[in-house]
């Protein structure tokens, strides 16, 4: 598995000695169980059992208010695969995810690189850029639905002032999803940036100095040293961003409620819509299970394709 360099170095410094050996003793086994038990029990009771419950529900026609919940086998799944709205939701979610991966990650990396130059005021800059990360999604969504307002919003006011064409943002089905993605990038960049920054700080200076002596210029140092050595961090950032972006819900809920014309339906939003507005809980649970499978599969896939040589 991946391990960033700085961390490795820290570990080496910390534990030059026997890092993989364990104390075996007959009586310790039990205490380990006692130590991990509270969390595992809670974890099983609160997440695992309900998750299995969700799977169980997905095999039924389950209207919460109804008194019987007939078993329908895989019908819900069959229906799901024939449901254009669901496919639409998948495409929207994937598009959103892609936008984050394509824009959020590189920009975050770029900002981290700039911050890593140790300019004056780095603390201020990083503080400002990180600010949205600590604010909750509901709040930033509320604020941004204002910024996006075509008539009253700051964004169109600025576009107007600079003489650029104004956009409908959330009001048009062609721009709504992109607008939500834009805001999410805004909110999330600081998060990835800090992870990248930690990764960058973990690359020993020696490599750069060696490369300078080897005659590599700034760009070459970035291309041949920073990027490859940052691969484990990048890998992590990609996975987290992917998992996180597949769960997109709150923004949609607050800002567009899936509209206009379902152009911002995402998988989780569709789950919410079918489960909690239309109360087809069985169908909704099928959506949830499929979502889980998609995300789990994606993270495994990513691990496979990237995981091979991320460790140095």
């Amino acid at each position: 598995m991946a391990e960033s360099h700085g961390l490795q170095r820290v570990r080496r410094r910390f534990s030059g000695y026997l890092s993989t050996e364990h104390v075996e003793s007959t009586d310790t086994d039990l205490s380990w169980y006692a130590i991990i038990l509270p969390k595992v029990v809670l974890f099983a009771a609160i997440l695992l059992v309900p998750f299995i419950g969700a799977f169980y529900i997905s095999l039924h026609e389950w209207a919460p208010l109804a008194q019987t919940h007939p078993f329908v086998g895989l019908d819900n799944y069959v229906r799901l695969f024939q449901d254009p709205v669901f496919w639409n939701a998948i495409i929207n979610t994937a598009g959103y995810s892609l936008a984050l991966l394509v824009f959020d990650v590189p920009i975050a990396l770029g900002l981290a690189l700039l911050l890593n130059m140790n300019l004056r005021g780095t603390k201020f800059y990083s503080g400002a850029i990180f600010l949205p990360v600590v604010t909750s999604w509901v709040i930033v969504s509320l604020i941004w639905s204002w910024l996006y307002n075509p008539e009253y919003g700051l964004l169109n006011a600025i576009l107007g002032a600079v003489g650029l064409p104004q956009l409908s943002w959330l009001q048009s089905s062609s721009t709504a999803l992109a607008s939500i993605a834009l805001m999410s990038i805004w909110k999330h960049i600081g998060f990835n940036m800090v992870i990248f920054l930690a990764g960058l700080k973990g690359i020993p200076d020696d490599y750069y100095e060696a490369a300078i002596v080897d005659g590599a210029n700034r760009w070459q140092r970035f291309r041949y040293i920073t990027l490859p050595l940052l691969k484990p961090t990048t890998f992590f950032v990609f996975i987290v961003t992917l998992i996180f972006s597949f769960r997109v819900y709150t923004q949609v809920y607050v800002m567009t409620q899936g509209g206009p014309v379902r152009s911002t339906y995402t998988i989780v939003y569709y789950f919410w819509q079918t489960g909690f507005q239309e109360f087809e809980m069985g169908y909704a649970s099928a959506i949830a299970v499929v979502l889980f499978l998609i995300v789990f599969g994606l993270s495994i896939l990513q691990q496979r394709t990237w995981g091979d040589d991320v460790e140095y």
Partner: protein
Amino acid sequence: MGKLDIRNLRKVFADGDQSIVAVDDLDIDINDGEFLIFVGPSGCGKSTTLRCIAGLETVTSGEILLNGDDITHQPPTERDIAMVFQNYALYPHMTARKNIGFGLEMSTDMSGDEIDRRVSKVAEMMGIGDLLEKKPGELSGGQQQRVALGRAIVREPEVFLMDEPLSNLDAKLRTTMRTELQNLQQDLGITTIYVTHDQTEAMTMGDRIVILDGGELQQIGTPLECYYEPNNRFVAGFIGSPSMNFFDVEYSDGTLVHDSFECDLSEETREQLAGHEGALTLGVRPESFDVRGERGPETIAAPVTVTEPMGETTYVYVDIGDQQYTVTLTGERVAETGTTLELAIPEEKMHLFDAKTGEAVKSRSVSNATNVSVDVRA
């Protein structure tokens, strides 16, 4: 050609409000093909000097000339200087081949084939021809070391800089690599500056040693010069292992007076010491003591506290007037803890330093010492 001149080099770091003078007015001329060793305690400015020469640090004042050209403000690439780092700084994500060829790829417009050819040639020379496709993580310390050297060599620079390149290796390997490096430098004839902490390396590897302390030059000379004719007390104590023993003495009327013993000096020495009456520091190397079988007028009775038999030599720690001193017994002689040695200090092997300034007032001379050298046919 790799003649490197360092003129009045000064490097000041700003550390918050304070400024740290890392290198202070350093002036060294290094001959083409010379193997120069930098030694000195931690923080004395060795690495900083090296980095200034490499161009990794901007110089505060002073000049660096390579073959007469001022390179003080050239970027590192254009200096034709290669550096070997303490922990090798091999790029972990590149194969050995890529590592070695990276510099050529970056700083020249050689074709890939040409680079490959050169890399292979150097790798053969270093005996790592069959390791070229491995990544640093898969190589042992010694192999990594060789790749790091190869990386420097392949560029055929005018000057090699090496910052404690062996310090990460274990003792046995260090010994092997030491000779290997020396042979290599002799074969290539490339001017080399080598930083080390290690006494053995300092004494054995270089043509000359530069001893630094607190950013200032203490002495520059051949290993034996530094050993036998240290400029000052610092150098005397620093060079040689175990360290030189120091006694606080008073000099008057041709006699050195210590709390536990006195020494009458010969006429010759008295002349040397003219004008140095008062407090002096007497320096005696552990192997310079004369161990007598019997108590005599000039012997010092020294109870043995610890012995360390090392095979051919034995280090004996003795007490003389509250302080511990070291005596080296050569041959197969041993001494036991609790016994007392009778020591004499041969006058010709005495070092004397000004107690205040630490300046040497009397040393042994190298030429004297080498008199005793073996007869060897050319």
